[in-house]
């Protein structure tokens, strides 16, 4: 089991490194259209062939990985911080504050977020560059992704507040500030870390879903969502198995994240 986890971490490291150095490794630019060899099969020139417009699939996969793997953790960070703030405050204070904040959380969970995302995307200035728009997309995902995590954090905070050791700390006469800083926060950390690690693959998939709706990262910048979009529908039966490389990489990466999380959790 331990070896498996180590392998997972090594795999993640390779993927991150390869995507960070995409500029060095990629045989071509991610948006150059080799129009004479569109829809090409794997070859020494194009390791994973080319797409409908003749763009090198391997290069697009590398750059797409960079986009998704850099921005998903950023979005996860934003949503985890929000969840920590809202869930933590609700759980710490309890009572009416908790009920109000959790009601607000439930309300946000019930909101039609997809619609909101579409609206936000539609309100962006038209000449937002692809790089800026992808950052905004992930930022919005991060800003909207907190409610589920906040519930978990709140439940955990509640458990901490009612725990014997915090009761004991009060019985020892510790001040409120000391209890918050030394007893509460350090013990909230494991759940926050877990939420952070869990939400990374969630955001990768969320962006992929947005991409399938045509609302993800703007052309010509590749992202996993955009790459998956090409596989929609009948392309699956096209007899070009190398097209599935993005899906395989996504599955492998998400699985490795999960293995890594288990490791983190067993440590905590």
């Amino acid at each position, binding site marked *: 089991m331990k070896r498996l986890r180590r392998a997972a971490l090594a795999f993640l490291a390779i993927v991150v490194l390869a995507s960070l150095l995409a500029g060095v490794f990629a045989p071509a630019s991610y948006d150059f259209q080799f129009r004479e060899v569109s829809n090409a099969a794997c070859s020494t020139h194009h390791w994973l062939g080319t797409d409908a417009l003749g763009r090198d699939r391997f290069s697009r996969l590398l750059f797409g990985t960079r986009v998704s793997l850099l921005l998903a953790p950023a979005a996860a960070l934003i949503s985890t911080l929000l969840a920590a703030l809202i869930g933590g405050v609700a759980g710490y204070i309890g009572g009416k504050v908790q009920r109000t904040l959790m009601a607000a959380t439930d309300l946000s969970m019930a909101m039609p977020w997809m619609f909101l995302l579409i609206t936000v995307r539609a309100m962006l200035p038209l000449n937002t560059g692809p790089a800026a728009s992808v950052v905004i997309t992930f930022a919005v995902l991060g800003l909207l992704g907190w409610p589920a995590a906040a519930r978990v954090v709140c439940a955990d905070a509640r458990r901490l507040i009612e725990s*014997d050791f915090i*009761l004991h700390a*009060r019985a020892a006469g510790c001040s409120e500030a000391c209890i918050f800083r030394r007893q509460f926060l350090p013990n909230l950390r494991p759940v926050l870390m877990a939420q952070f690690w869990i939400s990374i693959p969630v955001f990768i998939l969320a962006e992929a879903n947005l991409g399938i709706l045509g609302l993800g990262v703007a052309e010509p910048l590749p992202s996993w969502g955009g790459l998956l979009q090409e596989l929609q529908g009948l392309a699956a039966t096209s007899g070009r198995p190398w097209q599935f490389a993005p899906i395989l990489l996504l599955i492998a990466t998400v699985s490795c994240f999960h293995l890594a999380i288990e490791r983190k959790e067993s440590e905590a």
Partner: protein
Amino acid sequence: MSAAPLLSLQISAGYAGRNEVLRDLSLDVEHGEILGLVGQSGCGKSTLALAIPRLLHMKNGTVRGGIRFNGRDLMGLRKSEMRKVRGKSIALVLQSPIASLNPALRICAQLEESWLAHCSGSSLECRRAIGTALENVSLDASRETLQKYPSELSVGQAQRVLIAMAVLHKPLLLIADEPTSALDAVTQSEVLELFSTLNRRFGMAILYISHDLRSVAAISSRIVAMADGRLTETADPERWLGQGTQSQALLAQR
């Protein structure tokens, strides 16, 4: 020694939406005595343990009545004043030693926090106080032990750490709520021995709460029994053993 008892209370207590757990219960604890309190589980012993340092609200409970401690009315104290009483004059040792320690902090850090709650001084003074406290509970004060996390301690060690924390400020009253129930027989008797020693050495009064009559009888100078939120009997330990009382039933259960 003054004539008035150290602790004298007459309270009712309960939790929101349930019947009262303590019904007009009155109890006195004299200076320097070990008062044993026995009763079956669920009779309100733990409620009483938390009600005295006014921590019952943490479990969503409420208390009515009066608690006089060392000449002051605890019910009338402000929050900040009450905080100064807790840990300093009234210490609490809870049932499950491991759960009472903060899993995220090293032992030394937890002891430091307890010390800092009522003293301000150099780290040297702090370390000396901690050393003395650990010595008092016969725990070795080596770096190795201090650097440990609670999960790395045995249950007995953890209980000693908690008792060390409790005696750090030499309180007038130590409330011990089932302090031995999680321990094996050998450790149990060691801890009981420790309580007697601390009582003798510092003149510290102990309210010893347990469902285990044997252990109560072993160290208490006086025993009260509790059922349904009231005190039912008060007696010397010797008198208990021969009589057909509720306490006999407790013994038979073991």
